[in-house]
Each structure stands twice: as structure tokens, then as C-alpha cells.
């Protein structure tokens, strides 16, 4: 039985991890810049810079995750975790939903942040900070759950 992208699963997993760390850091930087902007500190340049880095890394991260998903489903979840660690399966299900919501929040926060004028109106700046902060929180949660499940049984290892 052959599964889509199974041959390159280990490479994809490493790329998923590397881009995942990039996503965590760029999204966190974007959130910090957005909060600084909401507190009337000069952070427009950082907001613009991380306003393309954060969504680009999160979208790329999501694409690697989606490519890995069939292999995870068949070789990790069905073959191992459903018998040995059903809690990890449920945790991973929760992680995929958190990742989807994080994707929407980060892309929206980045687009909104890039549109903020200088000086930013208070309500709009707070709105961007709220979107970005919630997005960063969900990205961190998804990263920690992903690391936990990968530590139990990485994709690409029988």
C-alpha cells in the first residue's frame, strides 16, 4: 500500500519542523510589534516586515503539514497511535483545528497590520494586536502539540 508523499515523509517532516520554528518566531515578533504599535510605540516598520514573513511562513508550514497528513494518518495514527496512545490522537486532532484557526488569524493580522497608517488609530491598532496575539497563541499551542506527538512517533519511522 503506497501513501501520497510517503517516500519523502522524513524530509517533509524536517522541513515542517524548520518552517514551524520560523513561523513561531515570526508570528511572535509580529504580535510583539502589534502590541507595541497599540501602545503608541514606533513599530510600524517591524509590523510591515513581519507582516509578510509571518503569513508566508505559516502558509508554507501549513502546506508541508497538509502534504504530510496522509502519511501520518495511515502510518502513524492508524498503525500505531490509535492502539498505543489514543490521547495523542485526540490531541493531534485538536492541533489541526487550532492550526487552521491560527492560519486565518495570522494572515488577517498581517494584512490588517500592513494597512495600518502612521500614526495608527487606537482602535485599529488594538484590533491588529488582538488578532496577532491570538494567532501567535494558537501557533505556539499547535507547535507544542506537534512536537509532543512527533516525539511519540515521528512520521517516516516504522
Amino acid at each position, binding site marked *: 500500500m503506497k501513501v501520497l508523499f510517503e517516500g519523502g515523509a522524513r524530509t517533509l517532516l524536517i522541513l515542517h519542523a524548520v518552517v514551524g520554528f520560523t513561523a513561531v518566531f515570526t508570528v511572535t515578533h509580529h504580535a510583539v510589534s502589534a502590541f507595541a504599535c497599540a501602545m503608541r510605540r514606533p513599530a510600524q516598520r517591524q509590523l510591515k516586515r513581519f507582516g509578510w514573513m509571518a503569513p508566508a511562513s505559516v502558509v508554507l508550514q501549513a502546506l508541508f503539514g497538509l502534504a504530510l497528513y*496522509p502519511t501520518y494518518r495511515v502510518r502513524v495514527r492508524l498503525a500505531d497511535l490509535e492502539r498505543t496512545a489514543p490521547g495523542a490522537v485526540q490531541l493531534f486532532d*485538536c492541533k489541526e*483545528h*487550532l492550526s*487552521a484557526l491560527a492560519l*486565518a488569524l495570522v494572515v488577517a493580522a498581517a494584512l*490588517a497590520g500592513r494597512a495600518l497608517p502612521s500614526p495608527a488609530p487606537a482602535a*485599529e491598532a488594538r*484590533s491588529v494586536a488582538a*488578532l496577532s496575539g491570538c494567532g501567535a497563541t494558537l501557533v505556539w499551542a499547535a507547535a507544542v502539540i506537534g512536537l509532543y506527538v512527533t516525539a511519540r512517533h515521528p512520521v517516516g519511522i516504522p
Partner: protein
Amino acid sequence: MREIRAALWAVSAFGVAYLVAGALRLPTLVYDPVAHATRFTANPPLLSIRYYGDLLWACGAGVCAAALASRSRGSRPVSALTGAALSLVALDVAFYLSRLFARV
């Protein structure tokens, strides 16, 4: 500030569509990793992946909402739109966490 309103409407629509498509098991695109088949159904086989389809529904809803909001002349306060968007996201998170804690 149309971009910010559009982004907030997009997040709201994404949150609603993602929750509704998944929780109500609406017909969606599913991929069967064993049979290598993609189909549009509400009742996928056990091993099928409906995540791709639910994500497509939600992204489509978000893009449509953003397009509509960027063309409209709505004057709702940004703070109210932010509260609504984040409340919908919080509802999604609460729903999926409740399912997690109910099963574990």
C-alpha cells in the same frame, strides 16, 4: 481602514464556516489516502481525510467575506467587529477543546 474590516470579516466567516462544516458534517471534499481517491461527500469512509475539504470551505468563506467587506461601506466600529471575530474563534477553540476533554 477597509483592509482591517475586511480582515475581521474574513476571520469571522472562517470561524463560522470551519465550525459548521466540521460539526454538522456538511458535504465536503474528502481524500482517501489508501484508495488515492478524492470525492465530495458528507459520509466519508473511516480512513478518509475531510480536513482538506473543511479548510477549503473555511478559506472560501473567509475570502468571500473579505471581498464583500472591502466593497461595502459598513460603518460598524472596529472594536465591535474585533470582539465578534475573536468570540467566534474562541467558540471554535472551546468546541474543539470540549471534544478533546470529553474523549481523553
